């Protein structure tokens, strides 16, 4: 994973509540065996017309003025539904580095952080303000500081967002969490010595 300390980027808003992972990437794209190229499938059923190829001109991600946006503003409870990590892979593939919402579904938050996509949880007022800003002026940018856990709005106001210490350490240092777990090898061996296994699938 690459280090992530700052995000400076244009915003785009999809102010819909409860955007589930089936909308972020429909299941028919899950037949892949790698992570490459999923950006094209992000929000596919909203982005394209019924034929699946003609862009839907009304959908915000298709509008020329929002091309290059790297921070997505979404409605409440973003990323609910299926546990597919293809959702953050698709968002990253589509150029996003952070998502702003008032609440994230648990599994999505975990998956996003493991891939360096930052879930930025803010209060409803900030979220609404950003939605209007993105609407009024597509060139609006925000700045995110991971170390300080702040989102800086165009008016200079800093908004704090929660981030657990461990994920923050991993983001800032580009460390993936598996390395940490592998180092606990001895503890795991001790645990196994004290706790008999419950089933043996190979039996």
């Amino acid at each position, binding site marked *: 994973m690459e280090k992530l300390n700052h995000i400076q980027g244009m915003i785009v808003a999809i*102010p*819909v*509540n*409860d955007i*589930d992972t*089936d*909308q972020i990437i*429909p*299941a*028919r794209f*899950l*037949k*892949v*065996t*790698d*992570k490459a190229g999923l950006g094209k499938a992000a929000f596919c*059923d909203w982005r394209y017309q*019924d034929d*699946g190829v003609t862009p839907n001109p009304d959908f915000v991600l298709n509008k020329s003025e929002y091309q290059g946006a790297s921070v997505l503003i979404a*409605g*409440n*409870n973003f990323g*609910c*539904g*299926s*546990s*597919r*990590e*293809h959702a953050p892979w698709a968002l990253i593939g589509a150029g996003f580095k952070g998502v702003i919402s008032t*609440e994230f*579904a*648990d*599994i999505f938050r*975990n*998956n996003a952080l*493991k*891939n360096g996509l930052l879930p930025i949880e803010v209060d409803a007022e900030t979220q609404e303000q950003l939605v209007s800003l993105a609407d009024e002026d597509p060139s609006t940018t925000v700045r995110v500081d991971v170390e300080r856990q702040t989102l800086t709005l165009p008016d200079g106001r800093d908004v704090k967002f929660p981030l*657990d*210490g*461990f994920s923050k350490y991993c983001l800032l240092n580009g460390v*993936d*969490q*598996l390395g*940490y*777990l*592998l180092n*606990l*090898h001895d*503890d*795991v061996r001790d*645990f*196994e010595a004290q*706790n008999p*296994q*419950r*089933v*043996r*699938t*190979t*039996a």
Partner: protein
Amino acid sequence: MTANGKPRTLFEKVWNAHTVRDQSEDTPAVLYIDLHLVHEVTSPQAFSMLRDRGLAVRRPDLTIGTMDHSTPTTPRNTLGVIPIADSMAAKQLDTFTQNCDDFGIPMYALGDEHQGIVHVIGPEKGLTQPGMTIVCGDSHTSTHGAFGALAFGIGTSEVGHVLATQTLLQNKPKTMAVNVEGKLGDGVTAKDIILAIIARIGIGGGTGHVFEYRGDAIRGLSMEGRMTVCNMSIEGGARAGMVAPDDTTFEYMNGRQHAPSGADWDAALARWRQLPTDAGAAFDQEITLRADELIPMITYGTNPGMGMPIDAAVPAPVDEPDVNRRVALDKALSYMDLQPGQQLLGKPIDVVFIGSCTNSRISDLRQAAAFIQGRKVADSVRMMVVPGSQQVKKQAEDEGLHEIFRAAGAEWREAGCSMCIAMNGDQLQPGQYAVSTSNRNFEGRQGKGGRTFLASPLTAAASAIAGAVSDPRTILSSAN
């Protein structure tokens, strides 16, 4: 209880028994995983990561694979083989076979007599046991909580973590007691309980929490009913839902392939009986529902929280005070092409799907078959019955249920996820309406442009016969 006598919840007991390291200010807890279930869709990138880093699977003997999501459910050909028409699905299934072979993981391949939906085969084979930690790259892993296991879905990176280390980094969730008191009426099922809970708390209501389902209505459910309830915990936002093990649990488990036997069984029983929440243990939140006030439930919108009693009218966006929810409801009704105030009862439908890890077990099929016996599926309706596993399929066929479904005009399919996720060609056409026993009614979930009403197997069967959304209680009472 702990040494100092502080009463603990079922969740806390299982959690505490599995922490290799406790949570600290700097790091989440490290949780040991007793059983890891893997399927073809969320695992390939995890296996690639293992290869890239030169890692082995630490405990293949605590890992099991099955094919379910992208597998076709079309009937076998004359050679007894289930043909795979989709080349991408075929490649994904081949990759899975290769990965399981290379890393020594036992796996049930398409067509194997034990293959099936991952959350159906775990319990069926006795692998799912009280007090265990169970994970899978699949959000409906919550199903296994019906046995008093702590079971939850993980992402693909985490699948890699568990494969390599048998552990996971986890922040300790909060707990919510979900009490369901009283007795269910005729025609009202476990599915209606969970749909009512989600309609009440909303799809984000349980975020950050583990549910414990309690109360006499839960105690009165069969294991399969409890699995239906726990299955949809994630639709309420909770990663896991649990039911304390009791005699119903033990009776279900006794004699299953991987369940302990002989002296081990007695020792396990003694352990399992310690698991239920101690009197006086505290939950972070608590809600209570009256089972006797429930009637069959159905969803009208595009998330599982948009549900209502089957005889109610579709709510109107103008009555919704919260602006975001108003917009969401408006968007949902427009996708579903429904009017505010409209009754769903009598709404013509095109498809009925009985299947998925929510409602594809033998008792679900028996209920639907008993209802359908001697009746006909309406001409305008395609009804698909997809057993959850090859074992369920075999048992249903031994009982003659497949003949009942076929005689009524329904399709009897091979085991798999099928139209629950529409990855395998089983899908709705744009604009079609379906009554489905599955768990998600998101836009396009059952096929692009398809519209889903989630309901119980009884409601699904009643609707198939009527050709329109129907209350199973009306037919039940006219038959009595």
